[in-house]
């Protein structure tokens, strides 16, 4: 089914609640406010959430300086974001997106508290990349209104949202979430609640198989990147990309999918990843990964 063209019965949302004001939550708040939504942005204390709004303001000011936004746009966007450190204040929103750290206990607690505070029709979405939407739904009395809304980093630039359909998520919730993603300027795909969803699962062997070839001495890191880019047309070879993402982050995703499928050999991590993570060679952010960034020449590219 093509999600883009399906006839949708959807609710119309005006106020979005966002739980977590980090990179993902902040990015979602930014695009929502830029697209005219009122945003209630929550984080665990006033200081953190105020700092996050300040960061958004600085980012929007930078866009304005480049001529991509007017000063009025920046002021209007920021005026649509209300910061809070009280989770229950999100009850005023008609759609909530949770973007807290990837910890199942923490997220279950957030969903349970939101369920208690919000009207029974409010849709509760999670931006999780690795946890089950069905499990989060189980922490509420409204599993039919619990859905996944997986954005990609950086949120303002990446055009995709995976809409994750939990085992008990109803059709109206899914359609409304797809419509909301489109109103935020994103392309939505529908994905059933399975480990890694689409992208984090199908991409595993871009890295995993490349690591295996290096481990077999089949080709070098540089050669594989060159072939991925010049033979197959990928924007970035697997090793340059792992350095950019963070080898630790990539290794954690691989381990999570491998464990979730109970040791399926297609997702088996590689000893090279573990060795590099434990040695602190995490990629660009550490100055050292599959490539050396100590002179920052590569990182500047």
């Amino acid at each position, binding site marked *: *089914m*093509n*999600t883009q063209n399906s006839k949708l019965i959807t609710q119309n949302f005006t106020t979005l609640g966002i739980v977590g004001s980090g990179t993902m939550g902040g990015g979602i708040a930014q695009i929502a406010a830029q697209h005219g939504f009122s945003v209630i942005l929550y984080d665990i204390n006033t200081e953190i959430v105020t700092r996050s709004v300040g960061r958004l303001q600085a980012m929007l000011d930078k866009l304005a300086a480049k001529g991509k936004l007017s000063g009025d746009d920046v002021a209007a966007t920021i005026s649509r974001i209300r910061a809070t450190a009280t989770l229950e204040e999100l009850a005023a929103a008609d759609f909530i997106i949770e973007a807290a750290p990837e910890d199942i206990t923490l997220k279950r607690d957030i969903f349970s508290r939101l369920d208690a505070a919000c009207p029974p029709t409010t849709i509760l979405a999670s931006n999780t990349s690795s946890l089950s939407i069905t499990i989060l739904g189980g922490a509420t009395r409204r599993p039919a209104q619990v859905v996944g809304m997986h954005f*990609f980093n950086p949120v303002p630039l*990446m*055009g*995709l949202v*995976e809409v994750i359909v939990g085992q008990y998520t109803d059709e109206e919730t899914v359609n409304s979430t797809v419509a909301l993603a489109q109103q935020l300027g994103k*392309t939505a*795909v*529908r*994905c*059933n609640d*399975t480990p890694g*969803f*689409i*992208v984090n*699962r*199908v*991409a*595993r*062997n*871009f890295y*995993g*198989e*490349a690591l295996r*070839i290096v481990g*077999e*001495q*089949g*080709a070098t890191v540089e*050669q*594989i990147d*060159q*072939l*991925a880019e*010049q*033979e*197959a*047309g*990928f*924007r*970035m070879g*697997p090793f340059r990309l792992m350095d950019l993402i963070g080898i630790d982050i990539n290794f954690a995703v691989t381990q999570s999918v491998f464990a979730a499928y109970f040791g399926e*050999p*297609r997702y*088996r991590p590689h000893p090279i990843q573990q060795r590099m993570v434990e040695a602190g060679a995490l990629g660009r952010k550490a100055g050292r990964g599959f490539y050396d960034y100590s002179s920052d020449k590569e990182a500047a590219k």
Partner: protein
Amino acid sequence: MNSVLIAAPLADVAPGTLAGELAAACVAANYDVTLYCPPVASDPADEGSIVKAFTLLREPGELHEPAAQSAHYILDLFDNGPNGWREQKQRALADLHRLPDGVPLLTTCVSGSATDAAAMFARPSQVIGFAAVLPFDAVNTIELLLPMQGDAALLEPARAFFQTIGKQTLQVADGPGGVMPRILAMIVNEAAYALQEGVASAADIDTAMRLGANYPYGPLAWADMLGLDLVHATLWALQLELGDDRYRPCPLLARMVRAGLRGKANGRGFYSYE
């Protein structure tokens, strides 16, 4: 004028396939191209219009004709793999022994190692393997694989040949699928498993990988370009050679191949091309 002899199944000499695109690239680079397409079970009823542009040989005896004997390069595009392909490749390589000694024989490694192909040829030191993905126009670099029994001195003429058709080369270690056909086969296999398990539709899987991971093509549309039969054969060869279950082909992919769905080459794959 230099001449090239291309050995391939007749059905594979079509626009969009590696054999068809290589033949067209050789013509564009002013090579005299002779096709050797010995009769095989998968032959189409019609020889097709593309074939009319070349000298076409159908019987091993015709390899004694000057068009074949004057070849400066031999390209073997018979694939290794399940479904009787291995026997076809063995037979074709046995036939090619009628060609002169010392001419580089460039054999496709998308579905088997160069060492394996060289072992099927009576003069193994004449064999150099190569591997590439599709679409051919977008490919700037072709992988060269030296068989264990091979002669490294022939890497240079192989490199020179690909340079004349506008492609750089990079030597990698020998193994089924080289580097990129192997990595792509694994990505396609995972996308096929996700489709079989109902994780998402084919169109949504492809959209997700293009927009969420910046892939140049969605993996299932890419599989249709690469050829489902070839992706399946790459996985089959990897599983056989490495003995690791991570390479087992997705049952949906295997069934599609058995049903004759090849992808763009015959208009039916994960998508339909009418």
